[in-house]
């Protein structure tokens, strides 16, 4: 196994910290359009610890990419603006307070980002060597010759064979998987503390997907780097994440360790997601879906954004009409609801609340945040910024000296 002694101490000290590396507190981002202000990100809170992989999951349009871009302040300012909140990064304070010049020294150096489309994310008229060296000379201030050496090393680290020759090649001469590796090499060439990966494998074949994710995990272990992984694929989350945040319609609706999320989802949206994943061996004739559609940001529903599609409110409403018990027999009924099934006033109070009050993210179970009124003890649970210093059980991998060529 390749030993990297220079990192070891850093990893140790970082992981021993109790402070998160990145803490997003109540971030809200808006876009000014002809039709008014849209808010694709509303009061989003989460944290990332050193050496941790945090996955941010959600359907298209839920605001996860905008959140990620906002961390590096890459949202174009004329239509977009930050409406509130903080993004605290270790050693830099609130990133939103930094000047543009200071922010530029964060980008690529402390926090790096890779994007979804490797085919178009590299400039076609420059060699990949030039593009990596550009980042290196900018942040590390070394001579061009040394920068090329560092670039070659980075290419080697990401498993590209014959890196010396590759430096002189152009992006169009490489496949998608290779280009994504180059992107990773470029992002990691300045040894960032946090890597934001916005759907890095969505545009790639499934087999390449696995390789890229494996590569990311390997690099993370070697460097003690944190990864904020944006994805919509639950399988990717299950394989790679330590901690998961689920986003729906501009908010984080659930935040927990990956094991806890999969075993005991608390939010009805997460429940719905898991139910809709087809399972091998099941005899179902119809796939389960979450009824309805993701709401248009111009016309978000009042109250909880999910309530029109939520089986919990639906059950309440149905029961009202037919006089049946709210939940099917055998369901684990939260205490308040069970108590409320008898009197009509309290059944309605649950439904009205979902339709008028937007639930904030609360720690409903130890180390498990959720944002749903119809949860046991929801009102009493503390609202806080989710912080989970958790890393999954790692099966030690034997990495041989050979490299992978795509």
């Amino acid at each position, binding site marked *: 196994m390749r030993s990297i002694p220079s990192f070891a101490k850093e990893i140790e000290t970082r992981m021993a910290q109790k402070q998160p590396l990145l803490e997003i507190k109540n971030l809200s981002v808006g876009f000014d*359009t002809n*039709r008014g202000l849209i808010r694709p990100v509303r009061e989003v809170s989460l944290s990332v610890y050193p050496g941790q992989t945090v996955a941010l999951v959600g359907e298209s349009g839920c605001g996860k990419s905008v959140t990620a871009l906002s961390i590096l302040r890459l949202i174009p300012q004329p239509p977009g603006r930050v409406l509130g909140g903080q993004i605290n990064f270790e050693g830099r304070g609130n990133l939103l307070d930094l000047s543009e010049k200071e922010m530029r020294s964060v980008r690529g150096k402390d926090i790096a980002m890779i994007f979804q489309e490797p085919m178009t994310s590299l400039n076609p008229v420059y060699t990949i060597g030039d593009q990596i060296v550009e980042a290196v000379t900018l942040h590390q201030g070394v001579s061009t010759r040394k920068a090329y050496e560092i670039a070659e090393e980075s290419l080697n680290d990401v498993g590209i064979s014959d890196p010396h020759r590759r430096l002189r090649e152009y992006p169009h001469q490489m496949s998608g998987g290779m280009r994504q590796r180059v992107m990773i090499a470029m992002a990691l060439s300045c040894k960032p503390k946090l890597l934001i990966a916005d759907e890095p494998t969505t545009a790639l074949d499934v087999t390449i997907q696995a390789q890229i994710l494996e590569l990311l995990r390997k690099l993370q272990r070697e460097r003690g780097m944190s990864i904020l992984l944006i994805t919509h694929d639950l399988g990717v989350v299950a394989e790679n994440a330590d901690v998961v945040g689920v986003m729906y319609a501009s908010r984080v609706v659930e935040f927990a360790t990956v094991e806890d999320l999969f075993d005991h989802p608390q939010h009805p949206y997460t429940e719905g997601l898991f139910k809709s994943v087809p399972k091998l061996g099941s005899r179902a004739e119809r796939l389960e879906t979450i009824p309805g559609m993701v709401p248009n940001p111009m*016309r978000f529903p009042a109250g909880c954004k999910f309530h*029109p599609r939520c089986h919990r409110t639906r059950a309440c409403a149905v029961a*009202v009409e037919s006089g049946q018990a709210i939940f099917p027999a055998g369901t684990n009924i939260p205490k308040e609801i069970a108590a409320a099934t008898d009197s009509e006033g309290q059944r309605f109070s649950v439904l009205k609340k979902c339709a008028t009050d937007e639930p904030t993210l609360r720690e409903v179970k130890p180390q498990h945040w959720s944002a749903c009124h119809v949860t046991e003890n929801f009102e009493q649970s503390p609202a806080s910024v989710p912080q989970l210093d958790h890393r999954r059980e790692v099966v030690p991998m034997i990495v041989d000296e050979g490299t992978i060529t795509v």
Partner: protein
Amino acid sequence: MSIEQAESSQMLAAAAAEPAMPPPARSLIRQAYHDTLASVLARIGLAWLFMLAFFAVFAPFLADSHPYVMKVNGRWSSPALIHLTPADVLLLIATATVVVLAIWRRLSFLRSLGLIAAVVVVAAAPVYLLVRPPVNVDYSQYRDDLASGKIQKAIFAPVPYSPRDRLRDQPEARLEKPSRRHWLGTDTNGADVFSLLLHASRIALSIGFIATSISVVIGVLVGAVMGYYVGTVDLLGMRAIEIFEAIPQLFLLITITALIQDRNIYVMMAVIGATSWTGYARFLRAEFFTIRKLDYVQAAVAAGLPTRIILFRHMLANALTPILVSTTFGVASAILYESILSFLGIGLVDEASWGAMLQQARAGGAGFVLWIAIPPGAAIFLTVFAYNLVGEALRDALDPKLRKRD
């Protein structure tokens, strides 16, 4: 059901049935015209063009040596009306139709155009048969007769000089400076510059329209044929287009017009039209190629509709407005070409033309005659500018990238 029950189910129904799409926008074409007219610059351009059209149509009444009415020996007569040419009369009839249609407003745009064309065609024969102005005209006669008392009373046009009135009774009035009598002075032949200016607007506008129409028709036909019967026909057509594009248009124009003996206005229109068609042909061909590949066209073919109908119906709907943008610019360039040819002396013979006037400004012996140099050039500039402004506004209105994003 109690009121609250009804309320709750209503809320749920409303939330679930919420359309995620904004209300349907106007059809693309109407929106484009609306946007174009909204542009201030386009409106200024159109205003100038309407004024020019007014001058063009009513030129024989605005600037004419023939008095409107005159009393000779106690009898009234109207030389202005007597000397109207068939072209003048047809133009007046067409304008009257346009005015009527504009007030009545029942017909769609295309149908109105068709009606105007029909009226002109139907009226052409009788007009050409019945309207016969005297061939030999002596312009100075009126002034002589007025002075000698033969004419008791006469009401003249605001500019009492025809463009062909070379002031034979006042031979020293060549190249006269602007004065009360001749608002813009006279040219080398003695003709009144202002009158020339007004009458030349006819040439400009008519050549612009008709030449461009001819080139559009040729281009559309060639392009459609190429796009429909692909293969050898397409190859041949592309050759033809390349050949025509290899010769600079002005060279071709010069070469053709130079060798034609009788250069009347219809010949000029035909020549300019016959050299400008390549752009439209390319565009149509590209449209056809794109349409062929569209899924729904293939589906229609699979359902049994003949290809011909699909292609033509779709093409007419979609390609019309983008072609309109090109035609606007095409009219501007046709006007420019005509004026260049007239300037060089190989354009129209014996007709008022802005280009020819500019040439006089140089050849006036004194080297530079101010009052002949500025007005016609300004007229060409303003007209071309107006067309370009309208064309630009139309193009901006149609460009999908510039559309305001929702």
